């Protein structure tokens, strides 16, 4: 029964279901799973495209095709989601109503029969995913942030007060601000400078690859690589940084425990190291797209290299710069891996995105973690608003 709690009646599958398919697939070797799932997925996309192709044709046969699809697709969708025993009636009922509405709306559509049907087929997969995976969870988390640890009692703004007064919460906010200010600035500046320096230089390809390589390394890998640089021990040093310090006769430093803020800055360095490659590749492409005539004209006017850069290059790549800065800034706001691998949030290096998972996994404190997520959300907000305004402007020009 649809209305019965799933705990009481052990649900039985109605023949084939999405779930049973995934269960069967899970039993196979990981490598064998790849071609199977890709082929099955390809078949589904192929079916969608076939229906899209034939939907708007006039004629009796196509009318029946549309009609059948409108009813069959919802039925299939429900069957795949593993309906419960005795629920066939409900499933059929819901599917028939949905199908009827869909077909009727399409039939009445001003743009002609098949129009809405096509549009829905194109948009449905992505829309369902976004609804299930982003919109519903975002709302759910927002609600959760006003409830206590267990999620049962309403506590108002307590979780938010905790965020700004508890040391973990407080440091996660401060550090996140440091991350989002420093990381995009430095990564973009160095990436841009490098892109300008190597433009038309000899061995451009090799130089590009050297900087891009860290971008292809996971944050976990980067964390291990840099832990090795920051390593501290008694006696002979194996970490490069302390190796240099001791070579000059200094005392070795426990870099990742150095407070205040030194350790956080060292973590930010890892992130900058990794993201500069992305900034460089995108900006380098943008620089090459700046018309050379403008460069030459500026040169004839007697502009020196710096003036040419400021007055010709930078305006020419403005929109790329915005894309790069926002992408890296959003990445810095959501940073989790580097902190998790290198310090585990100890010694006040925690950030919002890490602390959020930490609260949830280690302390099972869902209210706190939801509040941290919402604070993170508020931090991303201005960046997105700025970008949306940029897109709006661009679309008006078009």
């Amino acid at each position, binding site marked *: 029964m649809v209305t019965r709690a799933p705990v009481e009646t052990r649900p039985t599958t109605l023949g084939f279901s999405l779930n049973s398919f995934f269960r069967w697939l899970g039993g196979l070797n990981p490598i064998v799973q790849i071609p199977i799932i890709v082929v099955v997925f390809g078949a589904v996309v192929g079916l969608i495209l076939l229906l899209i192709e034939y939907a708007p044709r006039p004629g009796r046969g196509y009318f029946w095709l549309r009609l059948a699809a409108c009813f069959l697709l919802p039925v299939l969708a429900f069957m795949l989601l593993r309906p419960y025993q005795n629920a066939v009636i409900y499933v059929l009922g819901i599917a028939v109503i949905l199908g009827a509405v869909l077909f009727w709306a399409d039939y009445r559509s001003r743009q002609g029969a098949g129009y809405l049907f096509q549009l829905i087929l194109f948009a449905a*997969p992505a829309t369902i995913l976004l609804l299930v*995976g982003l919109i519903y969870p975002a709302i759910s988390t927002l609600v959760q942030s006003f409830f206590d640890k267990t999620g049962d009692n309403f506590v108002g703004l307590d979780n938010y007060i905790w965020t700004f007064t508890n040391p973990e919460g407080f440091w996660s906010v401060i550090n996140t601000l440091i991350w989002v200010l420093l990381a995009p600035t430095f990564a973009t500046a160095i990436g841009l400078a490098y892109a300008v320096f190597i433009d038309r230089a000899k061995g451009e390809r090799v130089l590009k690859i050297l900087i891009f390589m860290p971008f292809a390394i996971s944050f976990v890998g980067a964390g291990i690589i840099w832990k090795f640089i920051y390593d501290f021990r008694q006696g002979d040093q194996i970490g490069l940084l302390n190796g240099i310090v001791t070579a000059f006769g200094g005392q070795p430093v426990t870099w990742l425990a150095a407070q205040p803020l030194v350790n956080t800055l060292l973590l930010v360095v890892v992130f900058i190291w990794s993201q500069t490659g992305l900034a460089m590749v995108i900006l380098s492409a943008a620089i090459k797209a700046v018309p050379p005539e403008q460069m030459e004209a500026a040169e004839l006017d007697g502009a020196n290299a710096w003036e040419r850069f400021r007055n010709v290059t930078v305006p020419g790549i403005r929109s790329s710069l915005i894309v790069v800065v926002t992408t890296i800034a959003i990445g810095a706001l959501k940073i989790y891996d580097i902190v998790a691998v290198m310090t585990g949030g100890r010694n006040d290096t925690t950030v919002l995105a890490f602390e959020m998972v930490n609260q949830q996994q280690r302390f099972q404190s869902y209210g706190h973690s939801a509040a941290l997520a919402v604070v993170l959300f508020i931090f991303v907000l201005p960046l997105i608003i700025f970008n949306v305004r940029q897109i709006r402007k661009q679309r008006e020009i078009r």
Partner: protein
Amino acid sequence: MTISTEVVEPVVDSRSARQVARDTRRHEAMARKRLTSKGATIAAIVIAFFWTIPTFGLFITSFRPGSDTQSSGWWTVFVDPAFTLDNYRQALTSGGTALTLGASFLNSLAITIPVVVFALAVASLIAYAFAWIDFKGRNFFFIFIFALQIVPLQMALVPLLSLFSRGLTINDVTIFPGLELRGIEHSFATVWIAHVIFAMPLAIFLLHNFIAEIPHEVIEAARVDGAGHGQIFFRLILPLAAPALASFAVLEFIWVWNDLLVATIFAPSSSLPLTQSLNSLSGTWGDQWFLQSAGTFISILVPLIVFFALQRFFVRGLLAGATKG
């Protein structure tokens, strides 16, 4: 007159073509000299040097005998060289928690390849609708989807996880029964779905920008010939957007391959990827740098290969639409 010039022309042309080529080359060399200063190149080399040092250090370490790495810095290798391949053999066969690095390497492949295919297909379908089907509120929905990047992954984790495992029940009415895949060995379904969802906003945005740039005449001509949206999408859009698809595939591949968080949350323990094994290595093995460094290089290998294989699309494709002012 006309006949004679016709005979002579090719000869003149070919010679001038060679001359032109030589001249252009000379001009380019001059322009290059004028526009790049020695200082800039030296600065670039200095930056490249500093950027490569960390990786280089670990690379050297991955070939040094384990006992050496514990006692001396990797730079001593220049005075006292000693190398071995043993680290790689050991790293592949010994594991962090439950999985060996070799097994989690396969898991990483099984997670990443389908995700890239799914994300590209689903995103390009809706991107096409946004670009070439006129409907009410098109601009609004497009900007709304772009703005969904606002939702941090972390915000979606817990609800999505409970949706997968327990389903959704509102007022005792089961809307979605849950997938119950947690106990299945080597089940990647939840990781696939989660990754594809999180990739959606950016993928739709970038692919739409490219697909919308395809000249109107091409689409019109196909339509006149009687092709429907399905054929246009399959026969025209996919081939024409190949550079954009390829470059997004590279990015998405690198991101998914390198992801730690999503897999840690959604994958059952037998399906954890390489990053997770590496991470637990650094926890359980503590100071065993020789194994960690070898493991790290195994994990870097695949994204680098993918990048080198597809890099010629990388710049051209994505940026054609994305950064147009």
